[in-house]
């Protein structure tokens, strides 16, 4: 550990690339996500958020935040709220024959991510959504700071974004919820129903000492974390799914199947997550000496978890694991998305929001099945005839070492209104 509190040198660098070894590492309590132990005021832009919290504080936060990811909430979002919002937005955003799919994916995803996070907004106000997406982009760079090419520039960007995000979005949303909570606690009738979202549960429970939420800034950053997590991964996964389909020998047939069959669209998304994890190499540091899958890991070692390799294990994913095959057979007990959502205590809380529930090997699901929002997005663009733009090339996000991230993905649509469907 350096004198500044930022870990910049390591006692060792240990790489795991086997599925079960990575899984063991993700469950190891001595391997932490904390590389910066400074306070927010001293420069740590991720200070205090649930993603880097430990032990009892982490568990207490996740208990109240996980209430927003219950199956009935997921079904409400994807069956009643999202389809209408998505279609209305696409009608507005597909304003030319050639468009950039990545910002469209961000705008589609940010609507429900904001709602879940507890940011009041007008889902039809595209300029407001674009402002939220601008903040998401900053927060995303902050969450990937370990892989940033210019960490100091990222820190400055994120701090400025937090300030504006708090002033313009969080404080008005906070004030409305605080008033509702006060009336609710006093038994007064409420004209407005208490929202179901992350900000509301944080404000309702913030006095709980285990939550460690006494500092207002932590609540702002926690809400920002959920806004970012719910937007960025979904948008990147949508673009990666389209990119993998475009690259398939039977691209048109796959797009037509996705348009007609929601479960195929979901399998395509889960296959995309496996091949193109948003975080290709997860990183941990050893808080203490530990033993992971038989390997000794010394204190202050950097542990690199090569998820891309693990997700291509032929013993789990069959022959030709590097190929994009949404119909591949995977045994029960193995997630089709591999380890892309992590595992263990810090497993992504929103995995079912984006990727839906696991798909059984029979490809038969019951009426309660959750397909995930990205599958619905993929199906929506497939129904509008998304095709590659032959005149412009996609651009990867060059600000990060993560190869699965795009900044622009030009496409054209054969029609601006959907056709097909089940």
């Amino acid at each position, binding site marked *: 550990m350096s004198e500044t509190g930022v870990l910049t040198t390591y006692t060792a660098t240990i790489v795991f690339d086997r599925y079960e070894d990575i899984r063991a590492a993700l469950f190891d309590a001595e391997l932490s996500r904390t590389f910066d132990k400074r306070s927010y005021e001293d420069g740590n832009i991720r200070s205090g958020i649930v993603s880097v919290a430990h032990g009892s504080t*982490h568990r207490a936060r*996740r*208990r109240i935040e996980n*209430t927003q990811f219950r199956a009935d909430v997921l079904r409400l979002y994807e069956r009643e709220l999202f389809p209408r919002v998505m279609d209305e937005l696409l009608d507005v955003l597909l304003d030319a024959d050639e468009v950039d799919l990545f910002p469209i994916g961000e705008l589609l995803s940010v609507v429900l991510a904001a709602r879940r996070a507890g940011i009041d907004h007008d889902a039809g106000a595209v300029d407001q959504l674009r402002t939220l997406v601008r903040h998401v982009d900053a927060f995303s760079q902050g969450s990937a700071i370990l892989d940033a090419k210019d960490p100091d520039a990222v820190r400055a960007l994120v701090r400025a974004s937090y300030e504006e995000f708090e002033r313009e979005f969080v404080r008005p949303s906070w004030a409305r919820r605080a008033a509702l909570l006060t009336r609710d606690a006093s038994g007064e009738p409420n004209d407005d129903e208490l929202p179901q979202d992350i900000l509301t549960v944080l404000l309702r429970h913030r006095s709980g000492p285990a939550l460690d939420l006494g500092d207002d800034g932590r609540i702002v950053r926690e809400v920002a974390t959920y806004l970012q997590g719910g937007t960025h991964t979904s948008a990147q996964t949508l673009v990666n799914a389209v990119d993998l389909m475009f690259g398939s020998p039977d691209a048109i047939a796959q797009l037509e199947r996705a348009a007609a069959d929601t479960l195929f669209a979901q399998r395509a998304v889960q296959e995309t997550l496996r091949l193109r994890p948003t975080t290709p190499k997860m990183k941990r540091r050893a808080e203490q000496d530990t033993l992971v899958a038989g390997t000794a890991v010394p204190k202050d070692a950097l542990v690199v978890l090569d998820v891309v390799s693990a997700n291509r294990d032929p*013993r789990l994913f069959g022959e030709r694991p590097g190929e994009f095959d949404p119909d591949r057979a995977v045994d029960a*007990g193995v997630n089709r998305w591999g380890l892309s959502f992590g595992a263990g*205590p810090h497993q992504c*809380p929103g995995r079912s929001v984006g990727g839906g*529930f696991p798909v059984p090997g029979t490809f038969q699901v019951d009426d309660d099945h959750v397909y995930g929002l990205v599958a619905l997005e993929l199906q929506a663009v497939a129904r509008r005839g998304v095709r590659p733009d032959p005149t412009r090339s996609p651009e990867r996000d060059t600000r990060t070492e993560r190869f699965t991230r795009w900044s622009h993905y030009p496409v054209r649509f054969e029609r601006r209104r959907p056709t097909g469907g089940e």
Partner: protein
Amino acid sequence: MTGRVSVDPELCIGSGDCVRLLPDAFMIDESLGVAVTLPPAAVADRALLLRARRSCPTQAIDVTDESGDQVRDEGTDR
């Protein structure tokens, strides 16, 4: 199976994965935000119970047989 299934309330974070896999065996106690077992857990499908244990993000689920020994995974790990 016949044996004992339990959830450690100190470890559980209420992810709900066990409820999704075995809704007759587990439920979330919303007042605590953690999963609890229901009586049918003791006779639930062993493979699904072991999958629930494996999928639990905090390893809060304990599955023991009639003699009190941990039931070992069979087939989910390869």
